[in-house]
């Protein structure tokens, strides 16, 4: 119980797959506690750093968003392969979220609908640079093994803070009322 904090900083990667970046914004909502956190963690690949791929083995990967296209699968698998702990951050990562409302539609017809030009033809982008959409939007735990789930759309800054501080102090994270929300 009284063991000192690990002298090594926790290495944290974050990523947004089929997310809205709201979970990252909620992370920033811990406000000045970010300074406290910066003393305890190093950030690896993340939208808030310039690191393109996991530079070394990470302790935690916070993953926002469900899995909607091929690139999401690659990113998620890289994070899984390079992290001790993968955390589903937010409703999309946990159960597909509101983007998964497309799951009852045909993905081809969705693209036709959106990219239809005024003359009635559909110019669906087909450059190989662009990742193909999957048939459905999937929660991340249907692609890789996930160690912890932080639900919420988004989880509040306090919820994320509770999780991070539990982790940093060696406790099993526990999220309960009023921090546990799905909406």
């Amino acid at each position: 119980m009284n063991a000192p904090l690990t002298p090594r900083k926790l290495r944290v990667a974050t990523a947004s797959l089929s997310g809205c970046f709201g979970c990252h914004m909620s992370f920033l909502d811990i406000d000045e506690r970010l300074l406290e956190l910066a003393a305890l963690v190093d950030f690896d690949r993340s939208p808030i750093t310039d690191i393109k791929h996991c530079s070394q083995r990470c302790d935690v990967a916070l993953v926002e968003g469900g899995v909607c296209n091929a690139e999401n699968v690659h990113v998620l698998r890289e994070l899984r392969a390079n992290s001790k702990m993968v955390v589903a951050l937010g409703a999309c990562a946990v159960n597909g979220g509101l983007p998964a409302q497309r799951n009852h539609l045909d993905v081809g017809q969705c693209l036709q609908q959106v990219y239809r030009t005024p003359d009635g033809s559909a110019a669906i982008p087909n450059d190989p640079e662009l990742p193909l959409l999957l048939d459905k939007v999937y929660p991340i735990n249907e692609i890789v093994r996930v160690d912890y789930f932080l639900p919420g759309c988004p989880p509040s800054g306090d919820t994320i803070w509770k999780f991070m501080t539990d982790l940093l102090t060696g406790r099993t994270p526990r999220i309960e009322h009023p921090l546990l929300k799905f909406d």
Partner: protein
Amino acid sequence: MSDISSANSFSIDGQRIAFTPGQTILEAALAAGVYIPHLCHHPELTPHGSCKLCTVVVNGRNGSACTQKAMPGIEVENNSPALNDRRRVLLQMLFVEGNHFCPGCEKSGNCQLQALAYDLEMLTPHFRHAFPARPVDTTHPDVWLDLNRCVMCELCVRASRDLDGKSVFMLAGRGAESRIVVNSPSGLLGDSELSIDDRAAHVCPVGAILPKRVGYAVPIGQRQFDAAPISRQVDYLARRHIPIVPVTEELVK
């Protein structure tokens, strides 16, 4: 138990509960302020026994607290880690079976399924999602139906049949194909006898049957389960009654 003081009492997790003969274990527990998780039970309607969340151990055997009568001297185990683990799995099964996207649901914060999941600290639905594609029925002028959120508790079936006398809803199909159907020639809600004044229109514990034009009227923080977890709202659960006055008129002031 032979002593007279226990003639009309039993124990839940060691606590003595007085009961009136004829009460179920769940009714007696709620009346005594003891919370047993439940979803398909409603104080005004006959027990159903479908959600299984109120499963308790009675004298060593599993039973549904909503259907099993309270008997003198029985020993009921309710709030144990093993039972709560099983309840959490039942909730996870309900969550993956439907499309429970709370962030876009009008019932969020007032939903019993969600409140139970909060209370039992369900962080993830865990299982593979079914992502059903059941059509949404918006044909009724005042009520709409999203059966992708339905947990088939049949509260609407019972309320419509027993309280409203209209039998608008019924459970049809078998197994995973089970679903609520509407009693009208076209199968559409708009062609049924359902009225916004019916109690069946307001009894749904989740976001499957919703009154139109009143969504998101209650500020976040003031919804039923915002202030306290459902397990600390035993009084509400024991005394709640289905509104007869349309929700519309109360909220649109």
